[in-house]
């Protein structure tokens, strides 16, 4: 930061390409900027643009590459594509259905793993959060703190004993181990967050239902659940991204079998064994990324809400 010159006042801005837009700001916006003490100099805009470009180029480069013919990828860099633009969908075809990769199978696995691993922990956590928020019982605070404290346990600590247990039960290498593990790992954070949201609901609503003779189950379904939809959506997106993008849990419990392993495991494996087959890796990376990307862009609002409420799992 120290390398920056003192910011020039707004009026002194010279006609600089990136700044043209900023000069067309409305009066109110200009005031807002001035009030906030924004670094409104050419330098400021320049830095913002440099960061944005640096952050986008890596993804953009691989995306372009995934549509280039195999021979072109090996011969020249993706930035030369505009000299002789040839694009193809063959890489995706090969990555999805080619016998050496068959990512379509793993795509199915990812979907089959993710849906229960989102639905189950949220349901269980909702019930627990309700009990912690609205049922009065002895030892409630102690138990809540205990659940909350379990957030510190890194999943690495739990993997080997869990795996041993699954092997003993004859479940090893099935979807059940992954569903169960993801559900367990999600619970402390889910309970904590949903409890926070539940506490925000006015007690008078719950009291009124109680006076009307509603039991806990009825209050839970008819009063609280409808009000909690945005909170549930926030956490669901988090859990979805977490499970879909997870490598460690799937690697430990599913191994590499095409019957269970998700996309992340398979693509990571390809990166190790066929590290220079960029036509497959680039297409594979985007096949793996497209679902979370769409979910993320469509539900960004809920995601930000969840982030600000503290839903970040390590």
């Amino acid at each position: 930061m120290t390398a920056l010159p003192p910011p020039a006042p707004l009026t002194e801005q010279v006609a600089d390409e990136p700044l043209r837009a900023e000069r067309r700001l409305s009066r109110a916006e200009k005031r807002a900027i001035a009030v906030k003490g924004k670094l409104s100099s050419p330098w400021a805009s320049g830095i913002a643009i440099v960061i944005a470009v640096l952050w986008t180029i890596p993804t953009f480069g691989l995306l372009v590459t995934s549509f280039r013919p195999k021979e072109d990828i090996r011969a020249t860099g993706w930035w030369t594509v505009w000299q002789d633009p040839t694009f193809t969908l063959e890489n995706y075809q090969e990555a999805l259905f080619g016998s050496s990769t068959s990512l379509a199978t793993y795509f199915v696995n990812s979907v089959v793993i993710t849906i229960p691993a989102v639905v189950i922990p949220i349901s269980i956590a909702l019930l627990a959060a309700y009990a912690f928020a609205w049922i009065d019982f002895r030892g409630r605070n102690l138990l809540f703190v205990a659940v909350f404290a379990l957030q510190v346990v890194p999943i690495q600590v739990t993997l080997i004993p869990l795996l041993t247990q699954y092997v003993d039960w004859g479940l090893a290498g099935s979807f059940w181990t992954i569903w169960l593990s993801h559900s367990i790992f999600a619970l402390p954070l889910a309970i904590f967050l949903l409890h926070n949201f539940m506490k925000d609901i006015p007690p008078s609503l719950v009291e009124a239902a109680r006076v009307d003779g509603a039991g806990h189950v009825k209050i839970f379904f008819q009063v609280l659940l409808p009000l909690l939809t945005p909170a549930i959506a926030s956490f669901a997106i988090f859990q979805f991204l977490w499970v879909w993008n997870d490598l460690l849990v799937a690697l430990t419990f599913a191994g590499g079998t095409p019957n269970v392993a998700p996309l992340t495991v398979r693509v990571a494996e390809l990166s190790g064994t066929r590290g220079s087959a960029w036509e497959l890796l680039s297409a594979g990376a985007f096949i793996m990324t497209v679902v979370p990307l769409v979910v993320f862009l469509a539900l960004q609002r809920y995601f930000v809400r969840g982030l600000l409420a503290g839903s970040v799992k390590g």
Partner: protein
Amino acid sequence: MDWFLNAESAGHKFALMVVAILLFVLVMGLILFGLERIRRLPVWVTVLGFLGPTVLFLAFGLLYPGIRTIWTSFFDARSDNYVGLDNYVTAFTEPQFQIVLRNTLLWVVLVPLVSTFIGLVYAVLIDRTRFESFAKTMIFLPLSISLVGASIIWKFVYEYKQHAVNPVTGEELVHQIGILNQVLVWLGLPPQQFLLNQPWNTLFLIVVMIWIQAGFAMTVLSAAVKAIPDDIVEAARLDGLHGIGMFRYITVPSIRPALVVVLTTIAIGTLKVFDIVRTMTGGNFGTSVVAYEFYTQSFRAQNAGLGAALATILFVLVIPIVVYNVRQLRLSEEIR
């Protein structure tokens, strides 16, 4: 039973998934139905109905395995003989593991600091501009990409091809396909094997995590910056503070609790990072970290004791950061 454990076709897998969800709904439904139907239940039965599944899951999946792992860390490779603190001594003294610890330290210091710094600067620069939401999305997107995907994206950035120049004409014979090496070539420098050359390769892995976490830092800090009361900013401006002065003396101190939350949250996530090291270098060339070495020792080297000790070290390292994080989170919530 076999139908439940081995699904090979896509149809079978989806059927299994639906059955699993239905089974779950059925069990939970029965519990809740019972609670609703039977009047005058003692409180503890209701509590058991609501909290039973949670307690069962957590005791089985977090509490017991955690204790078990700590226990195992005091035994030898095959968990047969008690060895006291030997595994910990190994982890802290052998040169091979000292590199691992050094790398972990580098990760856990650099990633939070750099990504928070970039996220904050960016958040302040784009605050209340016309492109704010678009500019945010650009930095934010890496958050949705898996660490495996991010590793592949960056591996391609670092891709290296043997440099070859025609000695007579000076013309390039081999074209670089990784953008970073191409930039070096444009600058007239020789291309580098970014992921192989120690000790710098660790830094190039760290860049990937910074790339991901800056979006998180930017989002949280942007919300905090917007929450700074206008009158404070206005007063500072009347006192002659602008630009960098404003940033240093008003913005940063006002959002201090949020800054700490972001720093610690990223530090926790970074401590546990595993995917990037595994995908990019496989822990070779001196790039391993504790979270990855745990995996290598447990599953590759079959050294249960040392693996457990590394997991326990990770556990112990995380605890103080989490405690600090939670306390600051409370503080920053008051400000938000």
